[in-house]
């Protein structure tokens, strides 16, 4: 437990030193301040609300709908832009562990390689989770106080975002273990993030493709790779209190994460430094 905490604390310290954490924290704080001071919501008769930004009023609307829509916008910005920034920042945190002169000392300690890598992985997830939760819980509280709407969908959506990040981080770990390169890890992860929304249009692609084998390739890629695009739809549904049609994108993405992280651990255990 001592070693695990030390590894997590060290990841936070490195994130602080690289100013990654502070960068995220600054962006989140700016958004929260925006919600506190700039966005004014006047609730009229408990159901209708008038929203004003920089003093300009928008037409009255249903307060719950207004809050949910705003939360879904924040969640989507966080999901796509925040995720991209997190991947960009985390790649360096993973590959720095494999630097010659640092890894030998870590490996000389009475801690198994699996423990070392999982400790670093957990630390990295927690760095990003702390920022996501800060923004989501902060804005949820602000919306709750200003409007009296306390729906849990927004909070649950943040867990989905953290979950998808942890899956992408598993890919970063695998690439980092194989190539020791933050740049390659970022490229591969971004490629996954770009490819998956395209693959999410599986049905359209299948209609457009002429050969059966190319349709098979699309199907295999779709079911194998994380379904970031499909999960973003699930997040939106959760926030808007709409039923989720299928949880397959979540569990299959989880399986991808477990498999890739397992492969990363196996490679790390086999590798000589």
């Amino acid at each position, binding site marked *: 437990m001592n070693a695990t905490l030390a590894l997590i604390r060290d990841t936070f310290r490195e994130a602080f030193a690289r100013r990654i954490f502070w960068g995220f924290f600054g962006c989140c704080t700016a958004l929260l301040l925006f919600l506190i001071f700039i966005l004014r919501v006047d609730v009229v008769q408990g159901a209708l609300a008038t929203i004003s930004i920089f003093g300009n009023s928008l037409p009255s609307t249903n307060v719950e709908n207004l809050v949910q829509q705003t939360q879904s916008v924040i969640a989507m910005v966080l999901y796509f832009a925040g995720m991209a920034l997190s991947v960009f920042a985390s790649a360096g945190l993973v590959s720095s562990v494999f630097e010659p002169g640092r890894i*030998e000392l870590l490996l000389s300690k009475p*801690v198994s390689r699996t*423990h070392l890598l999982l400790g670093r992985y957990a630390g990295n997830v927690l760095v990003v989770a702390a920022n996501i939760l800060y923004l989501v819980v902060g804005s949820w509280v602000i919306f709750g106080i200003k409007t009296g709407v306390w729906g849990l969908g927004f909070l649950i959506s943040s867990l989905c975002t953290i979950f998808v990040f942890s899956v992408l981080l598993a890919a970063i770990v695998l690439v980092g273990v194989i190539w020791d390169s933050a740049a390659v890890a970022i490229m591969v992860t971004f490629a996954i993030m770009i490819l998956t929304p395209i693959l999410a249009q599986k049905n359209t692609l299948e209609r457009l493709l002429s050969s059966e084998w190319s349709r098979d390739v699309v199907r295999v890629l779709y079911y194998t790779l994380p379904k970031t695009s499909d999960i973003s739809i699930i997040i939106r549904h959760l926030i808007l209190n709409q039923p989720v049609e299928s949880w397959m994108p979540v569990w299959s993405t989880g399986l991808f994460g477990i498999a890739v992280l397992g492969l990363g651990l196996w490679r790390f255990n086999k590798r000589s430094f």
Partner: protein
Amino acid sequence: MSGFAINNKSGFAIETEGLTRVFRNRWANTELRAVDNVSLQVPEGCTFGLLGANGAGKTTFVKMLLSSVHPTSGTARIFGRHAQDASSRRSVGYLPENHRFPTYMTGWGMLDFYGALSGMDSASRKRKIPEMLTTVGLDERAWHTRLGKYSKGMLQRVGLGQAMLHAPRLLVLDEPSDGVDPVGRKQIRDVLQALEQQGVTIFLNSHLLAEVELFCHDVAIIQKGKLSLSGSVKDLTSSGGYRVTACEVPEALISELATRSKAHSVEHGLLELMFSTREQANSAVDSLRANQCEIESLHAIRSTLEEVFIRTVSEKPEGVTDK
């Protein structure tokens, strides 16, 4: 000494058997035998120096002991436990050669982090860190300064501190005094000597042969991955031969002894004889005494460790061929 008791029946801190590491480059279809069939035993409580030219395989050997490099074949054991077993490293402190300590850590933070990884609890770390930082000669101002601002010598000291913090029974030090000034070297030597007296096994990998000669009892020389020579420093440095001087030696005996010696000279009635082995020298003394000759002196000619090292690495080890 150590806080971690490990039952070691073998009596050896380090034991390797046929340890081999081959680096293969599949693209270029080449292979490099960085460590080739090295069998070595380092008794507990010993101060042991591993010597070798650059690229001889010393660091790869050390990395295999500490499991950062996996052996191609052979085994390595630390206090009787397989080196691949993480628990074998509970009683080991290590200072790597080209270390890259995280620059965002402070001296205190670094010891705290590596201490926790070594299995120390929070209270012991809090108690021992200031002691250790003082022992390695870092003043209080440096304790909470980031490592990025440390000089090379200070980094060596803090690195040594992290290696010793958890009171290991085996210290593996790769160039411990690299970048440290002469006063600092002496301080480090004193610290290590104190540890040696407490029964800590010290495995030193250094290019500074004078330092190894001063400090180590046993050494091994590794050349092109193979173990070329091992033994006690005392024995290895006394292998320069034996000199016997005597006077009033009859001509006939001079002629006889001259044939048995490596070299001889007669000056002002004093015969000086050089022998390769102790037995030859003893036999010559017997002959001289039997002929009522006076023995003026008898002593072993000592080589420096550097001379032994140069002599060894100049010879090609068995099975090593130049490509």
